[in-house]
């Protein structure tokens, strides 16, 4: 049977994939993908624990987390677009001049 | 001098059918029956009621029709029957087929035409079959440079997704629904969000410009109308207090929700038109601007599948309108309890279910006609007007109705604690 630990393992693998993406990818949109993957892995953990405890609070947290992830993605893509317009580039390594 | 096709000869028609029957009988007796018996020898036989379904029993059922009632009952209550035949795919597909015929005749009447006329003996009733045969026998052209997998997969996905939407529709009392989900309403919205993505995927796969613009327009349209669409159902949920579609229908046994949420119903109607990509919102397929929109590169059966999916979607949304606002299957009982007076055998005819199906189908068809009507009377609108309508007008209208409903609930006019309790 699938138990709590199985979900946690899936979550960890997802987080690792996300971390790999953040380290390797320099494309800003792909980095946002990585962040989303990590956020979802965390959501999965939350829901798994919520089910383990037979409680809805984890689900409420997940709803909030998803909402905030959506808001974050909107702002993140907005930033990417303004950066693209300024530098004609979506490679984060090229955004050095942002350091000021 | 005149070259008209040969006249229809009734005699030759009958003789050809007789030949066909003869050959079928011969093949069945020589090949089919031995095969069936061989299979029956190895396969464990199912229990029908209390007795094992032996071949003897099976054939004796043919002689005595009343003995088939248990097997029919057994079949009806399986999941396979629900998915394939009654509230599921078969029913939806038949309604979709009838819709296509009705649309063509209805539009033709409105436009002083005749519509399909020749195929089938009466008013071109078999036109759809002829069209299907034509589409099947056409070559499918995959444009060069297309993404082959997505190009073939997307129309099938389209039909499958449309079928998944129809799975959520309750048709009659007593659990006549394929999937009875607690969050049915949100599931409908979630699945409907897939269609523009499929459109965009298909347009991206076909490596052509016009489909590409069409796919983007489909996404824009979804963006403009998804929120009014979701919000317009909220005023119903406020009163019903549940997201389960069956319970929403059951909570309307006193009055239909269109009485307390007329503006929401109007918004739902308009947004459904937009979701269905029908005129006046058929921007993704606007043929005078972008040849045929996202289905420009489709040919043959791919086009047929997309059309099938579109009409399944039309049925699903019309049924959803009926469920949310028009009381679903509720209606006066007009079917008698017994279809054969004095019949005392096992009951196969449930008059409440039949009544529910009748009223549901009737209302759904009324809604489908309403969905078809704008195609006859209005031109297509432009994309910026569309976005403007969705964001500035429909959302405001939705909230007006939501607050009206809220006032009714808190004012005690609608009893708190739910209609169901």
């Amino acid at each position, binding site marked *: 049977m699938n138990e*709590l630990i199985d979900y946690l393992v899936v979550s960890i693998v997802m987080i690792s994939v996300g971390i790999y993406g953040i*380290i390797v990818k320099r494309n800003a949109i792909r980095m946002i993908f990585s962040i989303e993957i990590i956020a979802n892995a965390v959501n999965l953990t939350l*829901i798994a624990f919520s089910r383990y405890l037979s409680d809805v609070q984890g689900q409420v947290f997940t709803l909030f987390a998803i909402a905030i992830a959506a808001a974050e993605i909107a702002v993140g893509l907005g930033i990417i677009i303004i950066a693209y317009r300024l530098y004609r580039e979506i490679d984060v390594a090229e955004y050095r001049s942002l350091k000021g | 001098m005149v070259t008209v096709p040969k006249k229809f000869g009734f005699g030759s028609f009958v003789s050809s059918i007789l030949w066909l029957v003869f050959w079928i009988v011969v093949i069945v007796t020589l090949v089919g029956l031995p095969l069936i018996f061989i299979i029956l020898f190895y396969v464990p036989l199912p229990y029908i009621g209390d007795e094992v379904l032996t071949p003897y029993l099976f054939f004796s059922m043919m002689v005595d029709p009343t003995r088939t009632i248990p097997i029919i009952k057994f079949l009806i209550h399986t999941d396979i029957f629900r998915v394939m035949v009654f509230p599921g795919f078969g029913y939806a597909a038949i309604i979709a087929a009838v819709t296509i015929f009705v649309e063509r005749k209805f539009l033709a009447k409105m436009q002083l035409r005749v519509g399909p006329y020749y195929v089938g003996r009466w008013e071109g009733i078999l036109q759809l079959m002829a069209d299907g045969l034509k589409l099947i026998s056409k070559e499918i052209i995959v444009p060069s440079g297309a993404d082959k997998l997505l190009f073939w997969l997307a129309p099938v996905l389209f039909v499958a997704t449309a079928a998944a939407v129809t799975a959520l529709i309750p048709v009659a009392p007593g659990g006549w629904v394929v999937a009875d989900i607690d969050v049915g309403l949100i599931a409908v919205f979630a699945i409907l969000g897939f269609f523009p993505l499929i459109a965009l995927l298909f347009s991206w796969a076909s490596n052509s410009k016009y489909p590409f613009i069409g796919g983007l327009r489909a996404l824009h349209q979804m963006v403009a109308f998804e929120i009014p669409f979701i919000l317009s159902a909220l005023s119903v949920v406020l009163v019903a207090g549940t997201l389960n579609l069956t319970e929403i229908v059951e909570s309307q046994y006193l009055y239909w929700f269109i009485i307390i949420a007329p503006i929401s119903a109007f918004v739902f109607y308009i947004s459904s038109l937009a979701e269905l990509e029908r005129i006046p919102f058929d921007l993704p397929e606007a043929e005078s601007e972008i040849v045929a929109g996202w289905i420009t590169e489709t040919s043959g059966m791919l086009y047929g599948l997309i059309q099938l999916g579109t009409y399944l979607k039309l049925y699903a949304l019309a049924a959803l309108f009926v469920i949310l606002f028009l009381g679903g299957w509720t209606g006066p009982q007009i079917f008698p309890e017994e279809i054969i007076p004095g019949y005392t055998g096992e009951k196969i005819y449930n008059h409440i279910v039949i009544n529910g199906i009748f009223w549901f189908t009737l209302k759904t068809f009324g809604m489908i006609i309403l969905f078809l009507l704008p195609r006859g009377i209005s031109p297509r609108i432009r994309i910026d007007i569309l976005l403007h309508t969705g964001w500035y007008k429909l959302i405001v209208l939705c909230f007006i109705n939501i607050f009206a409903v809220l006032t009714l609930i808190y004012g005690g006019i609608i009893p708190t604690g739910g209609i169901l309790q």
Partner: protein
Amino acid sequence: MIEVHIMAEQVFYGLAILTIGSAIFALESRELIYGAIGLALSMLGIAGFFILLDAPFVAMFQIAVYVGAVAVLVIFTVMLVRTNELFTKREDKNRRIAGIVFAFIFMIVIGLILLGSELSKASIGELKIDNITQKIGGEMLTYYSPAFILLALVLAGSIIGALTLARREDVDNSYERVN
């Protein structure tokens, strides 16, 4: 219900493969638009897990938001940010190896910690709640109402911020009629 429990394990493995595979595809696909589709599929897999964990409302929310909205937004951004060469730029190899190694180390360490802990023996029991959606709504509006208001502020701030960021200063198009 019995069938489901037999199926649940296979469904779980299928969903795991779908989720992780499409997450990797989202990061490694050649075309960014396919990457967006991969992300959407991955989120769909997560939603499948949610359903498996008896959280249907959250699952539907996940599908509606991620497939319906976020995938659309990402695809539009990909459309907006033109110039195809930007997307096909290769990463340098060392960085890639470092990333893979680090990810593996992280996975193994945390995995070992988890497997060694008591959690590995924890078993999921019967579900003791009904009317999940109503419960969620109730919790959200009573106990967590300050967080809810805060969330509203976050959403409002994000939309205003995103629009302000994406605005073009160089065009003064006060002539545009929206209708």
